[in-house]
């Protein structure tokens, strides 16, 4: 939609300008994200750090188009997410971004390949093309031999790799990872971040990593932003 498209060629993948997200809890107004301004360049690997309740996941949800800001402008790939309809946002989540969650969020009843195929079904990609694309991403995360397994039959690390494959299958330009190592041991967590770094380097995908593990973030992210009480304190 042209109204929501900003023809910016400024090299930014994401630009949050004075973005706020407030929640009313009874009489109390919770400022989960408060007047945040943050820019992420295309191909950049940014770590978003902060303690629990600092608002980093809320900011990520806003950047991923899962939520609407209360105020401010959120521009991703030149498009103002705040001006998009629910249908346009769904399309944006399907085609432009990939999201990886702490809890993996694979559908337990489906095999790995079926889980990975899901975004392709939603994008109405032809059946003939789907199998090749699923195979390609499963090979990238080294799970091609586990494609017919169900998530319950895999280790935590394998499940997260499968979730990354699912996030990559529609060739997104931005990959959001919300505490992807939160449910993993440190060695497996390291492997997952290594995989994300590889993706950043080889596919030139912009990566925003939300985590509270500063050493890991410092090891892999090119830049680190800190949040505290809904505000960006350092970027």
């Amino acid at each position, binding site marked *: 939609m042209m109204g929501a498209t900003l023809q910016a060629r400024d090299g930014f993948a994401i630009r949050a300008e004075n973005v706020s997200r407030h929640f009313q809890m009874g009489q109390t107004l919770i400022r989960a994200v408060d007047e945040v301004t943050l820019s992420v360049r295309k191909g950049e690997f940014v770590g978003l750090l902060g303690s629990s309740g600092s608002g980093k996941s809320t900011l990520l*949800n806003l950047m*991923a188009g*899962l*939520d609407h800001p209360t105020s401010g402008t959120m521009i991703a790939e030149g498009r103002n997410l705040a001006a998009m309809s*629910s*249908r346009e946002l*769904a*399309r944006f*989540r*399907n*085609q432009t971004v990939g*999201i990886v*969650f702490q809890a993996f*969020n694979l*559908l337990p*009843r*489906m095999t790995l390949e079926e889980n990975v195929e*899901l*975004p392709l*079904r*939603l*994008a*109405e990609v032809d059946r003939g093309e789907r199998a090749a694309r699923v195979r390609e991403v499963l090979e990238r995360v080294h799970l091609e031999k586990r494609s017919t397994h169900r998530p319950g039959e895999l280790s935590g690390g394998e499940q997260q790799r499968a979730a990354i494959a*699912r996030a990559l299958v*529609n060739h997104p330009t931005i990959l959001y990872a919300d505490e992807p190592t939160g449910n993993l041991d440190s060695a497996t967590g390291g492997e997952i971040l290594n995989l994300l770094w590889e993706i950043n380097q080889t596919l030139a995908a912009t990566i925003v990593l939300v985590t509270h593990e500063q050493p890991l973030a410092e090891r892999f992210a090119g830049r680190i932003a800190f949040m505290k009480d809904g505000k960006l304190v350092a970027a």
Partner: protein
Amino acid sequence: MKVRDLTELAVRNLREALLRNTLTTLGIGVGIASLVAMLSLGVGLQRLATQRLERSGLFNAIFVRPASDFRRMGGGANPAAPGKPTPLDLKARQAIAHLADVQEVYPQIRFPTEIQYAGNSYPTAVAGIPASDRASGAFDGMEGRFFSSPTADEAILQIGFAQRLARQPETLIGKQMVVRYAKREPLAATDGGKGPATGKTSPSAPTAGFSLVLKEKDLQIVGIVKTDPEGFGGFGRGQLFVPLDVAEALHATQVTDLRQVLRGPSSVPTYAVLTVRVTSPTRVPTVEAAIKRMGFETFSLLDTTRNLRLFFTVFDLLLGIFGGLALVVATLGIVNTLVMAILERRREIGVLKALGAADQDVRQLFFSEAAVMGLLGGFFGTGLGWAIGRALTFGTDLYLRRRDLPAVNISFVPWWLALGAIVFAVAVSLLAGIYPASRAARLNPVEALRYE
């Protein structure tokens, strides 16, 4: 999402909660089955009544009389000559027979008689029966058989009369009897006015009439019928039936002959009443109008058919309402199942939305699940409804057979009922899915993903 993908996902989701979804589908099935069984009963009974009535020939029959005989009911007098009614003679009979959609035209012949059997004399009335009446259903289950040919010198007795002739009526079959009747012999015009007249001969009217000659005819009894084959059409009911051609050939004096004499001299014999059989009850109005245009009075039972249809429409509606109650319960079952599914699959909905499912996709997915349940329930319910109908027919047949009555098919599932029931099941399921599907589609993905 594409329809195939939606259907695959819907079937997969339904398989996951197999027991609950099966029970819900069975609920729809039972609801549809009760609806189908009730309506099949309504349709079956309507079909039975219509078939019986149509076979009786009453609804595709038109009774024709000369205009003056009907006291000008309906104003059907000859428009060409208002004062002089068109004679209902052989020429008119042939003209009516040539009208489109007319199957046959025959006179109603009934005359008084004395039967000589086993040395006794029994008064009764003879009626001529056309060969086409064999299929009317009135002769179903009769003792003996129908006439061997339209000109056979054979007789069928009505059970009441047969019982007067013999204590065990079935023993009459194959026996000979003598029918005594008054033959109508035309008089020459010069004969008029002579004889022992007590009244005065009308000076303005040319003299005419006929003499009555006592005749006898041997007939073989071939059957005994329990019903009244003449039904509504009877005027002066007959208890002894002979082939119409045989009755006509006797030239027996009928009560209505008197009217013809009073009407004046006529060179050709006329009929009191002609029965016109039409190919189908739907053609009755057209043929009736054509006969009226020829200058005759007509009478048919078509209005009764209309009333019968009205009755069965109301009857079907009532049966449908009772059958529909079970479906209402089943609909609530679908709503409950889908609402429960939303609660259970809240996180899954969140994941789907995070992966790019639009509200419409989620709505369609839940609709598809409802539709699949409706479709399966519809097929199952239609089959079950049909089986219930068959069971009812079977039970009724047993009951009727014990009472020595012929079997009837009281239940019938026409193709439109089967198809309609399946479409209705899907439509009701989709209707039941509106609220759950909309609720699922409106879920906030962030909140849904937070749900454990």
